[in-house]
């Protein structure tokens, strides 16, 4: 099955176009971050003529980027860890047990993916506010509220992917452990989980990315103290000025960790999607 010359050239030109489409905005993000403010406010130039790292220094003082970064880090890490912990137990039950309501659970959990965020944003906003007034538990405008909200966002997909991973681990291993007297939880922690480490790591990164990138709830549920990057980055555009070089610098800095994590683990995402889709 050899590729004809025409096919090779068609492949090369299409891939080149796609590469340009993807690359140009990424290039602009990087190149603009090393331009002085004046150069990003005047006509666009492809090449930074006077490269400088000023934007990477100034961006911390134009807006309280450090605080936003800490908020995002705390909210996303805690939400990711909790979400994966909850998903592990649920996925173990779905993968290893046949029980009444199993199908209903899977369908319901997946269908929450289809709910428009806007539908439960308004009620959740009012519930959080009223709960705070009634009991003193501050969920509105607090990191706790965001954590609780975000951990449910990644939950359905995490469960789905983990079920796929767990299913691919031979049951013979479980049974061997049970013959040796291990209970279900010991089987989970000593047999199933160790064999699914790549999957668990991939799902954790996915949950982290979900929380790190969320905009809608962050824009309503936070105040100045609990603001995350998703909303905070909008602070670079003021009424008088848009600090494009600093926005690009800040975007670059907050994108790097998640992009690196995702790309490093990409083949486990592919494996998880395959495992989930086979069923």
């Amino acid at each position, binding site marked *: *099955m050899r590729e004809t010359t025409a096919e090779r050239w068609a492949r090369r030109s*299409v*891939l080149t176009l796609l*590469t340009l489409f*993807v690359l*140009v*905005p990424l290039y*602009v*993000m990087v190149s603009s971050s090393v331009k002085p403010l004046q150069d990003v*406010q005047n*006509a*666009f130039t492809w090449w930074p003529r006077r490269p400088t790292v000023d934007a990477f220094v100034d961006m911390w003082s134009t807006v309280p980027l450090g605080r936003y970064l800490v908020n995002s880090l705390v909210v996303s890490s805690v939400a990711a860890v909790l979400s994966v912990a*909850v*998903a592990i*137990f649920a996925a173990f*039950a*779905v993968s290893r*047990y046949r029980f009444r*309501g199993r199908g209903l*659970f899977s369908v319901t*959990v997946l269908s929450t*993916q*289809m*709910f*428009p965020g806007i*539908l*439960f944003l*308004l*009620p*959740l906003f*009012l*519930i959080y506010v009223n709960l705070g007034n009634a009991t003193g538990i501050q969920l509105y405008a607090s990191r706790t509220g965001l954590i*609780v909200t975000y951990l*449910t966002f990644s*939950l*359905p997909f995490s*469960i789905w992917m983990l079920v796929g991973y767990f299913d691919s681990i031979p049951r013979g291993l479980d*049974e061997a452990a049970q013959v040796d*007297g291990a*209970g279900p939880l010991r089987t989970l922690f000593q047999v199933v989980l160790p064999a699914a480490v790549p999957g668990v790591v991939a799902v954790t990164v996915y949950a982290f*990315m979900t929380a*790190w*990138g969320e*905009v*809608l709830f962050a824009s*309503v549920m936070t105040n100045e103290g609990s603001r995350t990057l*998703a909303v905070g980055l909008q602070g670079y555009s003021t009424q008088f000025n848009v600090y494009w070089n600093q926005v*690009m610098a800040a*975007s*670059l800095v907050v994108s790097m960790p*998640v*992009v690196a994590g*995702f*790309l490093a683990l*990409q083949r486990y995402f*592919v*494996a998880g999607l*395959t495992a989930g*889709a*086979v069923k």
Partner: protein
Amino acid sequence: MAITTVHDATGRDGPPRGGAPQNRPRRPRRSLLPYLLLAPAVVLELAIHVVPMLVGAWMSLLELTQFHIRDWSTAPFVGTENYRMVLDLDSAAGAELLHSFQVTVLYTVCSVGLSWVLGTTAAVLLQRPFRGRGLLRALFLTPYALPVYTAVITWSFLFQRDNGLVNHVLVDQLQLLGDRPFWLIGDNSFVALLIVSVWRSWPFAFLCVMAGLQNIPADLYEAAAMDGAGFWRRFRSVTLPMLRPVNLVLLLVLFLWTFNDFNTPYVLFGGSAPEQADLVSIHIYRSSFKTWDFGSGSAMSVALLLFLLLVTAGYLLLTNRRRNDA
């Protein structure tokens, strides 16, 4: 039996081993354990998704305007009044919602179609190993891995009228256009929104199709090639049918995400979208928080959910029936 099984299971672990093996069940038949394992997930989903949704449905029946927002209990029950108001095409609110709905349908169809075509093309072209394939795969996935707001902010910079790249290329370098057009307001804003959306979501299609392609045995292609099938023939007769299960899920998920898309217009246009790119999610958000009329906002949200439920159910019915017929 059902109630005692948990004790059963632990009890049977207790006695010294060595009894008749067939007496020791490998797994309790109806244990409480799976339910306990599911409990945290169920409680969270209930608390954050299901209960607020029911509350939302209730809110849509109240006159929940700014006068009653502090204390819901004073909000008068108005029945279907909110629905009548937002779905009445003769009223201003109804006409605006219909317009926003039409924009969203067009946006979704274009974005999902383009994303699927680009994703499938790239995945098929990267099917066979060549130098630099890993690098291209990583590059193509990057837009999906970027946090949505950094990607969209970057695009809003590209689309700036005076200092953006798009006008620089189109007007200054290629001289295709005489005047510098606005991209983020007016008629062009729909195109701008669509481009950003496709840029963000085609890598997901790429990822899914790539995963699906790994399940196609290579000898199917060998056999097709042996029979003299060219590239297109192999794509139509081997790749597409084998990808069907993946595509069914992929298209549905892309449809739902795109139809509910809030982030892209919100960040691209800075809070409020121009009329030409007024997607339903942002329309509801704006009309709820600008006027503090949560009652009609909830009514619109519920109507949106019902619409999505109908489309999804129809889609599943249709695709299942075709599978059974085949």
